[in-house]
């Protein structure tokens, strides 16, 4: 039980926030993405989305590039390697919190496999 609470405390708060979790989850599926698509898919308004993206950019999880295509301003987003790792770690930690028995079993299985090989 205490172990579970400790695991809960370890969760990355920056990724744990639902809007930012959605942003990162969608971003990892593409190489690069325009702001317009993320706005439509996430259902967040421009202001909210910009705010969350700024936080992710500050943490080094997302790269934001602004340029003009003709006369139209475009914002392009890309998840960094650190962002991908953070999301992966978050998923693993959350899984350990929600399914502690399963994760213990997986650890035992892994240990058993390593000793038998």
């Amino acid at each position, binding site marked *: 039980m205490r172990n579970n609470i400790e695991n809960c405390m370890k969760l990355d708060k920056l990724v744990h926030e639902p809007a930012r979790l959605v942003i990162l989850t969608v971003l990892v*599926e*593409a190489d690069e993405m*325009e702001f*317009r698509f993320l706005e439509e898919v996430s*259902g967040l308004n421009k202001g909210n989305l910009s705010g969350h993206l700024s936080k992710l950019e500050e943490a080094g999880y997302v790269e934001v590039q602004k340029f003009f295509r003709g006369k139209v301003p475009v914002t392009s987003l890309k998840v960094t390697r650190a962002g991908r790792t953070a999301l992966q770690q978050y998923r693993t930690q959350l899984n350990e919190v929600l399914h502690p028995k399963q994760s213990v079993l997986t650890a035992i299985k892994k240990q058993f496999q390593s000793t038998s090989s």
Partner: protein
Amino acid sequence: MNDTLSAECHSSEENLATLQKLTREYAKFSREFAGLGHVLGGSLVFLLVYLLRRDSLSTWVGFLLGTTPIIWIIFKEWLHNSYYQFSGRVTQRARRWHDWTVGILAGLFAAAIVATLLVYRLNEHWTWKLGLNTAVCVVLLIGMPLIAWRYLRAPYEFVTGIFLLVLSAFLLSGNLQIATRFARALGFVAVVVAIVMVPAGYAEHMRFLKLRRNMQALKGSA
């Protein structure tokens, strides 16, 4: 409490999985899926192979046919960048096989060019004057790996695209006879791929229409 939390997370996990799937599908239309582009490319292979089997073509008709692969690539790129990316560009993560195949293609083209030059030199047929026509042909052939790397990203369009562009290079440079021989020698390979490419492109287009409906529904529910 843990169960409630777990249930909530599962429902949001499902939502996240749906969003991921939708994004992945949408991104495919930036590189891998060309939909109507594949339908047009495949149809173009049938048309060119059929017409080049007839001997009655004039050089001007050949020249006009030579422009069609370039128009096809422009149309395909418009589909990739605008029509199929109606809600902003989302680029699919690059596939490693593509870099490998382009590398092999570049090697093959380099070897073919070197071999041709050597044969000409050994046979003392070094009378080739570089006119505008030949220059167009040479530029298209040398630039082929670059064009393939940039514009021919799906496996079907890679095969048919190379075939169409080589034909285009011969036709635009006025080498109708070489184009006819090339179409007769390798046309069947391109036709076989085109037979698969046309229905696959149609299926991709149907997937796109479904995806657009899903995205509209998502927008409506937000």
